[in-house]
């Protein structure tokens, strides 16, 4: 899952990014001004945008309006110090999905982010079960045949993303775009490496390769 934070207080953005990486295994990009933020939000397929309203160069609501008018359904969580009902109503009217006022609780922010992403993937249940595999996306606990499995962060990220789209063929490009932020180094065969690692843990049939198209977790296609 990949998240964009548009927030002009750089330290705040870094703190959020850190927590999202550590506690949710998200890939996180940060933008500290409005124009840059809009560009990033439009150019990459983010799973969630965390948006401040008072931004240099471009107001957060303008970014939100641009996103929506261009048909982007990316969940947007507005994070601002404007705490009046009017502001909240305005944000929601502009098409944001959730709202937190500063100062906020990190735990709440993370929980809301996860909930928004689950909703976007139409998976209201935080637990995704696929054969013998159970993934709790809220606590990031993975169990296989009743036994808890501890996964490295990147492997969990990949597994969670495939599980969210279980039954669908997911292209390699999609995977890379949702697993890595801009700062990460990308290797072309990295997906294969993680997929083979996951196959070792959970058996060869859990994730199948669809020739020339990508990967599929569960489902019957193939």
């Amino acid at each position: 899952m990949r998240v964009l934070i548009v927030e002009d207080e750089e330290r705040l953005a870094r703190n959020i990014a850190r927590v999202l990486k550590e506690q949710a295994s998200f890939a996180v990009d940060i933008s500290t001004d409005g124009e840059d933020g809009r560009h990033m939000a439009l150019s990459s397929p983010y799973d969630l945008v965390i948006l401040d309203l008072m931004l240099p160069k471009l107001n957060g609501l303008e970014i939100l309006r641009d996103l929506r008018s261009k048909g982007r359904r990316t969940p947007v969580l507005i994070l601002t110090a404007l705490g009046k009902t009017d502001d909240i109503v305005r944000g929601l009217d502009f098409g944001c999905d959730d709202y937190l006022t500063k100062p906020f609780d990190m735990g709440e922010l993370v929980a809301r982010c996860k909930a928004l992403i689950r909703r976007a993937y139409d998976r209201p249940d935080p637990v995704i079960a696929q054969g013998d595999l159970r993934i709790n996306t809220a606590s990031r606990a993975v169990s296989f045949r009743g036994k808890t499995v501890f996964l490295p962060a990147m492997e969990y990220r990949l597994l969670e993303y495939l599980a969210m789209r279980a039954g669908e063929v997911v292209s390699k490009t999609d995977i890379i775009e949702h697993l890595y932020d801009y700062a990460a180094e990308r290797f072309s065969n990295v997906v294969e490496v993680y997929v083979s690692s996951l196959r070792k843990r959970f058996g060869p049939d859990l994730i199948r390769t669809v020739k020339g198209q990508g990967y599929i977790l569960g489902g019957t296609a193939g």
Partner: protein
Amino acid sequence: MNPLPLKWRISLLLSLVLLAVISTISIVAYLKVERSLVDNIDQTIRAMADAIRVELNESKGKNELETEVRAITGSTKYGRSIRYRVWRHDQQADLTASDPPDSKYGLWLRALPRDSAPEVGRPAFFDVGERREGFRAIWMHCATTQGHVNVVVAQPTHQVFQEMQRFLRMLLILGASMVAGSAVLGILIVLWAIRPIGRSAERLRRITRMDLGSEDLHDIRVPYELRPFLNAVADMLARMDKVFQQQERFTANASHELRTPLALAKSTLQATRSRDRDLQEYRTAIDETLKDLDRMDRLINQMLVLARMDETDGMSQVTDLSLDGLLLELAETFHVRASQAGGNVVCGNLAPTRVRGNEGQLVQLFSNLLDNAIKHGPPGGTVRVTLEHADRACAVCVHDEGGNIPAEALPHLFERFYRVDSSRNRATGGAGLGLTIAHEITSRHGGKIEISSSQAEGTRVTVRLPRLSE
């Protein structure tokens, strides 16, 4: 004390005025009518007396005369109510009389004083007795063929009295009903006239905070005379709206400014606390949090300074002080700070100047300006302070080499929470209150503050203050 309602006052006033007018008219009419009734009687008794005199001239016998006089004085209208007495001027005995000498009327007819007899040809009229049983009488002294004869004819006035009573009753009823009518009319007029006020009040009651600004009250139909009042109310609403908006903007800005560092501190602590970190990370987190707390502390102090200045209009603790000395001291203090970043603060010409003012506030004013100059000037740049005389004023100039304030921002620099960069990013610290405070302090000291900025010239803040003569 509650004053009498307007309707009662107007109604009372109207009634009183009408009462006075009606009373005057009634009294005049009453007197006139009474006069004319009496005149009427006078004419009647005069005619009777004249007729008696004619009879006397014809020298008739006593009985004949008596019959004639009875005929003259007896009328179909008044019956035998007319009293008379005819006697020779030099005798007591009557030629003829309506009443025997010993009867009640006979007594007062004979009690007329002899000396007061009028002259010949100039009969006298007079009133006798109380009103209810009174008489109007004529006493005619005439020279006849039988010698000087006195004729007294008296007609009872109770008829007049009754007429006048009736007339008075009519006047009272008429007057009272007019006064009462006017009282009711007064109340109705007032109620009718203030109806638009009631309508307006009803409308004003429905105005809420939300439509203060959009309310011009022009759709309320009121008489021409009330329009200025409603316009004044509409103006007041507009002013209130402005004040509310300012207040709301201030609150929104203040909460934003306070919440941002709070959010920073909280997020830092929570992010650090979420798992075990090494010592260095804890140190960094604590340092960053302390910086956030400092920022909040500064902001709260600035807001308190502003609030305190808002509370009091005048200045307290005013002393005569040396402005050049104050500036020199401040420049040295700020030079130490600037030199840490390789910059410096220098004093140009500081003319010896004494001003009257609050020292604490003036220190705050120039500290804010120097602080801004160091922050917004280029790193390692020079901040220059000068103090010059101009007529009765002095001008303090704080100049830095920045000059990056856009022209469209210049008019807004003194607004609360205004920042050139709309992001409100705190890279340079400050919440946009420093110049507001500077402006407030300057105007409290009867001075003016202005800012000019250009790439070529840098930024120059000039504070003009009235100075004390040497």
